[in-house]
């Protein structure tokens, strides 16, 4: 059986002024698959997601997405601070008048429970939450409409190890149970191993390696090995020299 492609990026380039961020990104994600993108800070992972979402227009290249029902967790959560937590979670449902407010609130509380938040936070404003709690509300909002494709920008950053695992399980469940396609950015290798069917590494504006978790441990790609080992010594040089 041939696997159906859900998300496809072909030779995508994106620059900000003279700063070339993406230099020909190629990536295919199959339906029902969970792909994780790893890569150093500032290599353009968030920019790639924004190109996929249509929030940024690539300078060249093609992007295809076989659905319009998309969920997105932003790196900084991006909760609406004029709305309460439950109104944030149920935002898309309320705006598109899919259900009434009572039902929407019930559903929002259900989604909040899935990310480990009790119903006491439902009526709180985002400004009164901790960073990790905001992130989880953002996650609840991203999955509230049961989207076909979900993008997670660093879902476990700022969470304690136990809550990280709860979120990892949630992502795995969302993909397996709902048959959603997930594209996740993370720096957290434990999380990547747990949720990924395939892992892709972004370096200098290109996907330089893509493969399964098993392949990740066997690869002789020096860049990937250095990144996975988290070592300062290797071909990837961080610019920390003060010159």
């Amino acid at each position, binding site marked *: 059986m041939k696997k159906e492609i859900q998300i496809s990026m072909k030779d995508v380039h994106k620059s900000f002024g003279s700063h070339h961020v993406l230099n020909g990104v190629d990536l295919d994600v199959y339906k029902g698959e969970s792909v994780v993108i790893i890569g150093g800070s500032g290599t353009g992972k968030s920019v790639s997601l*924004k190109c996929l*979402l*249509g*929030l940024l227009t690539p300078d060249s290249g093609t992007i295809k997405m076989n659905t319009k029902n*998309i*969920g*997105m967790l*932003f*790196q*900084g959560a*991006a*909760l*609406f*601070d*004029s709305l309460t937590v439950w109104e944030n979670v149920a*935002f*898309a449902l309320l*705006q*598109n008048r899919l259900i009434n407010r009572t039902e929407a609130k019930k559903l929002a509380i259900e989604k909040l429970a899935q990310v480990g938040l009790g119903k006491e936070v439902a009526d709180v404003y985002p400004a009164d939450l901790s960073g990790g709690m905001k992130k989880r509300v953002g996650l609840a*909002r991203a999955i509230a409409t049961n989207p076909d494709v979900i993008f997670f920008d660093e879902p476990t950053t700022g969470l304690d190890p136990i809550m990280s695992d709860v979120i990892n399980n949630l992502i795995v469940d969302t993909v397996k149970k709902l048959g959603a396609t997930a594209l996740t950015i993370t720096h957290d290798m434990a999380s990547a191993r747990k949720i990924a069917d395939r892992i892709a590494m972004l370096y200098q504006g290109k996907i330089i390696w893509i493969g399964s978790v098993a392949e990740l441990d066997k690869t002789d790609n020096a860049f990937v090995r250095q990144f996975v080992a988290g070592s300062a010594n290797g071909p990837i040089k961080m610019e920390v020299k003060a010159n």
Partner: protein
Amino acid sequence: MKLDLGFIDALGRMTLRFFKSAGELVIFTGQAIYHSLTPPFYPKEIGRMMVEIGFYSLPVVALTTLFSGMVIALQTYAGFSQFSAEGSVSLVVLVAVTRELAPVMAALMVAGRIGAAMAAEIGTMRVTEQIDALSTLNTNPMKYLIGPRVIAGVLMMPVLVLIGDIIGICGGYLVGVTKLEFNATTYLISTWNYLKPMDIISGMTKAAVFGFIITLLGCYNGFNSKGGAQGVGQATTNAVVSSSILVLIFNYILTEMFFKM
């Protein structure tokens, strides 16, 4: 010689930047009008903005128009009594307040309160990616953020000005009766007799235009802000300064249009 070229270079760059931002503003204006007039509408947001603009601006608008009416009565008396034309004080108060002072004062106050608040709120939403988040939740940010604000501005400014008219005229009346020793009944009757619908209508028309300008520039500057807290601060300042200037320019243009009526 090199110096001259640098100067021309800078001048050219400035001119280009000016036309670029002017063009962007024109496009933004077109989009704002389009998105304000086409569904979906967001009644809850429109209501929230109407309260914000109409209700919470009442105290400042009332105070400024009250004192403007009072000062006009005093000054007119000082000038007109030299020609024994004191009887015209009520007329001057009426015309000055309804045609000029109430709309302009209210607009400048609302620009400071509402224009700034809108630029800050939308600017913060921009730099914290909330505007991006709106699009991922199947909501058009232009429709959701700008439509309600522009609609509320255009609807509420005339109401504010109508209230300002009444308070300003009362201010003139208070000074006329207590300080200038006019007969209360005579003053009221002459005000009533001088009252022409066109005075009120022209002031309220101006108000609607000013409401559009203020909310549009608040939204425009917020929408295009970048670079964190500093960028939002810059957007706020720009919104207030540019809308105040445009209000005064359009006040002249509209006055000229209404001049013969």
